[in-house]
């Protein structure tokens, strides 16, 4: 890995001039056959791969109205060109959403449109060549599928859909990304991204019970595979181990304990994350999600609650009903599935939790809206609930809260720079540079309001910022879980 420079943050954000090829060297490790096969993909580049890729492209387009419309409708107006955090952080023009789409659109045009078949030069159509494939591999792994560009597109063209399709095509010809595919394989085999088997998980949870008992004097349980529990909690496996994720998990447990809700984790479905979304493969998407349906039925729960994980919540909120529904076996009085923030928010509103804000008085807090929660899902019963609910929880737990600049939060939030299957050390340069727009906005509230804590509800965001914050001279523990704040503020024991 060549040395690289962390982007310098000026006083205000600047749209950089185009620097062709600035990130052409960025490529994640390629998946070996052992990581390809369990997902149903060829182990290496298949003979005749050009033809296979073009055929697969045609299939995908005919199966997705989104792709069909998005590939035809772009007018190259340029509205999206300065909206991607990777373009803003790297200046590489192929990181402009329209240019990224064009990597695939040029091939689509060549083989599937009249203009591209007969006048390729005129409309920028290209043959499927090794050079094109290499470009795809590099630049479709410089998209975190955060959908920010689509908010600004007059036709709602979503680069995430195109980047998912491109990755699916690459997998189908045997060119997969190691990071995502290895992880998906672990979920198929063991049930979570970490490859953590049931007994080890029980062990970890026992440790947590002891820690919480020691800190609070209260017996807060972390149940596993408990049949007949009311709630099945499905959370990203990072919550079991990583900092600051684990504070979030402790927070969920305390909330459910305080509310007297019986709950359980599942060793069969010990993972909320579903990286199949990132590689755009619906067979794997459905298979990974299927474990949760199986666990819910097996344990006989009445509700499914999802922990703090951005893309997992997108899959859960937007896709689960389609993939593993209908949820006619769950209690119809609750949304299925429900986000842990919805649960906590509802309990706070009903006065069911005792929260001592002063416990967080050492913190000045801001909130990073995670892309997949903001632009791939919703919470509560009104549009935009996913922005309101986490903030109301934070405000109930802390005295000092400020938001970052409005164009960098809500539905126009900037991705952390590590989403979409890019949270791997072989892409560290991309991750650091892609975080620049978020760091710019953070810097401003640090200087103006003394912010020293950025809360998030996404495991990837938390891991990414832990790694990237030090590059921008912030302490790595500045990032935390929303339920970490709840955990500090909540007063357990009989209500006073």
């Amino acid at each position, binding site marked *: 890995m060549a040395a690289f420079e962390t982007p310098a943050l000026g006083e205000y954000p600047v749209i950089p001039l185009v620097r062709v090829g600035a990130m052409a060297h960025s490529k994640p490790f390629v998946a070996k056959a052992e990581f390809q096969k369990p997902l149903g993909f060829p182990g290496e580049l298949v003979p005749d791969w050009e033809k296979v890729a073009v055929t697969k492209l045609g299939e995908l387009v005919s199966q997705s109205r*989104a792709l069909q419309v998005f590939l035809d409708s772009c007018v*190259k107006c340029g509205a999206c*060109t300065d909206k991607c955090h990777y373009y803003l952080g790297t200046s590489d023009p192929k990181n402009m959403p329209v240019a990224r789409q064009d990597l695939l659109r040029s091939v689509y045009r060549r083989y599937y449109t009249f203009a591209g078949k007969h006048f390729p030069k005129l409309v920028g159509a290209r043959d499927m060549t090794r050079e094109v494939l290499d470009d795809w591999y590099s630049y479709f792994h410089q998209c975190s599928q955060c959908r920010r560009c689509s908010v600004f597109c*007059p036709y709602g063209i979503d680069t995430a859909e195109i980047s998912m399709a491109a990755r699916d095509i690459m997998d189908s010809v045997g060119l997969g990304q190691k990071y995502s595919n290895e992880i998906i394989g672990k979920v198929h085999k063991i049930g979570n991204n970490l490859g953590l088997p049931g007994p080890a998980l029980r062990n970890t949870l026992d440790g947590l019970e002891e820690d919480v008992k020691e800190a609070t004097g209260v017996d807060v349980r972390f149940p596993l595979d408990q049949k007949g529990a009311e709630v099945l909690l499905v959370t990203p496996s990072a919550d079991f181990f990583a900092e600051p994720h684990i504070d979030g998990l402790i927070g969920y447990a305390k909330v459910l304990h305080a509310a007297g809700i019986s709950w359980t984790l599942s060793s069969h479905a010990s993972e909320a994350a579903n990286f199949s979304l990132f590689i755009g493969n619906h067979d794997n998407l459905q298979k990974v999600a299927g474990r949760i349906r199986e666990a819910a039925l097996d344990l006989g729960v009445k509700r499914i609650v999802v922990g703090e994980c951005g893309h997992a919540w997108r899959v859960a909120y937007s896709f689960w009903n389609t993939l593993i529904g209908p949820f006619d076996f769950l209690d119809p009085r609750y949304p299925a599935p429900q986000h842990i923030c919805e649960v906590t928010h509802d309990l706070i509103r009903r006065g069911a939790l005792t929260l001592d804000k002063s416990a967080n008085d050492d913190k000045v807090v801001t909130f990073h809206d995670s892309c997949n929660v903001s632009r791939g899902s*919703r919470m509560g019963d009104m549009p935009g609930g996913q922005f309101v609910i986490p903030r109301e929880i934070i405000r109930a737990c802390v005295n000092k809260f400020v938001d970052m600049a409005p164009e960098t939060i809500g539905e126009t939030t900037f991705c952390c720079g590590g989403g979409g299957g890019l949270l791997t050390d072989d892409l560290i340069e991309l991750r650091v540079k892609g975080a620049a727009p978020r760091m710019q906005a953070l810097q401003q509230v640090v200087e103006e309001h003394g912010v020293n804590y950025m809360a998030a509800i996404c495991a990837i965001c938390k891991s990414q910022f832990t790694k990237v914050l030090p590059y921008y001279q912030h302490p790595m523990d500045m990032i935390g879980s929303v339920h970490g704040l709840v955990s500090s503020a909540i007063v357990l024991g009989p209500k006073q």
Partner: protein
Amino acid sequence: MSALTVLYALLFYAATAILVGGVAYQSWVYARTPQPLKIPIPPAPTTRQGVVLRMLVEVTLFRSLFRSNKWIWLFGWIFHVALLAALLRHLRYFTEPVWAWVALIQPAGLYAGFVMLAGLAGLWARRFLVDRVRYISSPSDHLMLALLAAIAASGLAMKYLAHTDIVALKAFFLGLMAFDWQELPADPVLLVHLALVAALMIVFPLSKLLHAPGVFFSPSLNQVDDARERRHAAGWSARISHAGRARGG
């Protein structure tokens, strides 16, 4: 009947067939292609009526574009509105008697020609001046602007520089519509104007101009945000079945 008249008559029949047939075909392709998953861009409406309103605001005011970039919005929006006004003004060549409201908007439609050119000039300037937009522009993007600008300019030229016999022109088009061909005035500017318009009609369904029907089919804009309330299924997602289903009862 001059050869020119025959040529243009046939050209316009062909162009109309390609425009109408092509757009209808493409719309049918969009309509028939399933959208297996829910992907509305939040904050998305939670009701059908909400979606209609969202789409209406999007296609009349270009809301997303406005949020995105005020210059592109300004040039793009005035171009489209002016184009619409100019098109409506031209209805007078196809209706007899001319509808009252078409007569009423004639002056506005005339200014629209200039506004259209101004909008196109702004959009075109961006393709040269903004390095990001320069990078993404292909020859066809420039040609499309050139085509539209030439149509507007040749139209204005007939009004201000070289008048044509519009009474005969109207007879030609009414004749085309009634399959009772009339002689077309052989003015060079008119012939250029008409040839360019026919070219635009022909490339419409073969080019990025498909954004016009496309926007209405865009799932990120036209889906209702009700994934938890209503089980969505289409295409491959409609073929999902669960092995564990029986257990649930």
